[in-house]
């Protein structure tokens, strides 16, 4: 019992500890550990019962032909073969999802950083702006999507605005070339969430850093580049990871606004797998899609973590 957390002295019947060094813990730390396990247990039970179980099951189902009604038939890797070689709509949806993630995630980060930087200045009505920028995050996505349907109408307010600058706006949600940019526009609407986190971190940067920099003659751009940005990189990194996962899993906006149309121009991976599972009753095929997506997200997250060493700065981990 190398991992035993209790001192063997209190339990004389306990077999003697092996030669490996046993870390003895103080009573308060032991109690803390027990409380930790007690309070984390609902989550762990929930994860094991409702997440891990279905996940393992879906690995099996992805190797079967299953309509959810009749017993599954084992087909080996047929679903994956079909996915990669015979299904043009999957490739289209995957391409669309990459397109969406590649633009919406960096855009969200840049917007969030820019807005937070602006709000960090001593401007009038700062609190009002802060509220206004965060407000869209609080509006339910369904309501936002409905509003965007109106805003993005071919003769809607957005195209009206573009018209003032002499730009003939596209039909956004109805145009295969513009429907993805429209969804990206909708994602930028939610930049307030990142802004608030970044702003809180910026507020926490000690003023001495800026004072010292000012004495050294650093301008505001240099201060931002050498102090503000490195200090907020952990939050940017957090937003990057969450943004990547969220973007690859985009569902509601597509489901409400376009149903993947026109002609799959806005079809994404998760709405596609939803259709396969619940409209066409191909749960095995849908499970295969979900595992492909899982691997893709995992790869991108790993790459982000790997490269993070080069640009994310943690104060406690000075190198």
């Amino acid at each position, binding site marked *: *019992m190398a*991992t*035993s*957390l*209790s001192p063997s002295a209190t*339990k004389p019947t*306990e077999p003697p500890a092996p030669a490996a060094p046993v870390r003895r813990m103080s009573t308060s730390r*032991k*109690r803390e*550990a*027990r*409380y930790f*396990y*007690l309070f984390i*247990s609902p989550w*762990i*039970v929930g994860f*094991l*019962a409702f997440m891990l*179980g279905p996940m393992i099951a879906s690995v099996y189902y992805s190797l079967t032909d299953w*309509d*959810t*009604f*009749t017993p599954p038939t084992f087909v080996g890797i047929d679903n994956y073969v079909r996915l990669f070689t015979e299904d043009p709509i999957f490739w289209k949806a995957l391409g669309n999802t990459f397109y969406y993630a590649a633009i919406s995630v960096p855009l969200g980060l840049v917007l969030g950083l820019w807005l937070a930087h602006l709000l960090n200045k001593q401007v009038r009505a700062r609190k009002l702006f802060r509220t206004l920028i965060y407000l869209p995050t609080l509006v339910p996505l369904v309501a936002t999507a*409905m509003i965007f*349907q*109106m805003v993005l*109408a*071919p*003769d*809607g307010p957005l195209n009206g605005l573009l018209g003032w600058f002499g730009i003939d706006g596209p*039909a956004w*949600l*109805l*145009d*295969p070339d513009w429907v993805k940019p429209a969804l990206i526009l909708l994602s930028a609407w939610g930049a307030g969430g990142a802004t608030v986190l970044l702003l809180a971190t910026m507020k926490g940067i000690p003023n001495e850093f800026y004072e010292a920099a000012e004495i050294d003659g650093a301008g505001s751009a240099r201060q931002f580049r050498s102090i503000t940005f490195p200090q907020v990189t952990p939050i940017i990194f957090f937003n990057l990871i969450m943004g990547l996962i969220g973007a690859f899993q985009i569902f509601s906006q597509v489901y409400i606004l376009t*149903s993947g*149309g*026109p*002609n*799959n*121009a806005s079809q994404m991976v998760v709405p596609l797998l939803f*259709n396969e599972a*619940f*409209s*066409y*009753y191909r749960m095995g095929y849908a499970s295969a899609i979900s595992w492909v997506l899982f691997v893709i997200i995992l790869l991108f997250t790993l790459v982000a973590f790997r490269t993070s060493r080069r640009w994310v700065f943690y104060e406690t981990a000075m190198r």
Partner: protein
Amino acid sequence: MGIMDTNFSRRGFLTSTLVAAAGVITLTACGSDSGGGGGDSRLVMTVWGGEVDKAAYQARIDALVEAYPEMSVTLQLILSDSYAQKVQTMIAGGSGPDIMQVAENVNVYSSKNQLLPLDEHIATAKLDLDSRFGPVGSVYSYEDTVYAIPDRSGAAILYYNKGLFESAGISAPTADWTWDDMLSAAQELTVPGERWGYAGAGWWPLWWSFAHQNGGAIIDEAGRPTADSDAVVEALQYCGDLVFKHKVVPSTIDYANMGTDMGGDPAFAAGLVAMNTTGFWNVGSLAEQDTVEWDIAPMWRGKEQAVATFGSGLAISRTAKDPALAFKAIDFLTSDKSQPLVISMKQDVPANVEVQQSDAFLSPSWMTDPVNMQAFPESSSFAFKSTFIPQWNEMQQAFTDGLADFWLGKQEAAPALATIQERLESIIPAK
């Protein structure tokens, strides 16, 4: 020593967590078994729709329970968008409904043995489907076996703005109108950029009606797709020309500019289109407003008379606890004892032809101005019958995808339907 003071190892913790998790799973599994056992008179009935549907079905269930006090029926109304998913999950979890509303996707279930064949029950009850329901009697059949009893069934009919027709001096439309009559009326009633003559046929049952009127069919009687036949191509092109050539029908872009979720129905109610073809469901709300003066008529004809029917039936799921009892309930719900409630509650056209031709339907008590309700029984005499293939949902998706460019005016009907036909042939396996 309390629980917090006992020896506590990580491994021990994980073991107990796993045991607890297994317990949760076991308990859930047991839960789905409870309520079993024969002779249970509690029936669960799933239907889709909104408030009107809920009230109508509940009223009919109340009448059913009054007639058979030994029954108790629980109504589960599910939003239309998520109905299929919910029912799928219920059945897959082993606790499917006893009585289940089905429509065009009936054979998704029957082809996978999820519905009970009803032929024996029909014979035992001496129910004559053809005399009770007319042409739609055995519409919910798969491989010559009946899987659902028709419950609601109304043809698409033409709603027209009576006020506009009268001021333009156009006589009321009839079933003998041709495509040319419709087009010339639509042209007269169109005011560019303000009002359109006709709401259009972008929805599948509507352009399919045009295709059948032109002598075509989307799926032939053998269940094979024939979407690229000359008759279908010509009919679809005509529907497209109404939008882009004659400009008497709002385009997708025009509808998007009218507001969120706009289509023919709200546009007609707002007076933006003078003619609209759709199902019964607007009759109730139009009867309550004064903005638009309106009436209904059967849809026009092409080379032939043909029109789509909207309907639904009641089926018994594989997991039903007491199929005989469930059938007894369905028999009552589709009889002349329950079907008048379908119309008196402003819900739909009852499938029961006797009720459809009764005064209860032709002049409902809630109708203030006279409306030509005769249009419904008249239309059902020339309604075309769709072949409800098991791959119904995938077929619809193929049309939605393949016609996206067509309804934006970027593609002709022939190439669009050729692509769709190819996709349909791969979706629908040859027997």
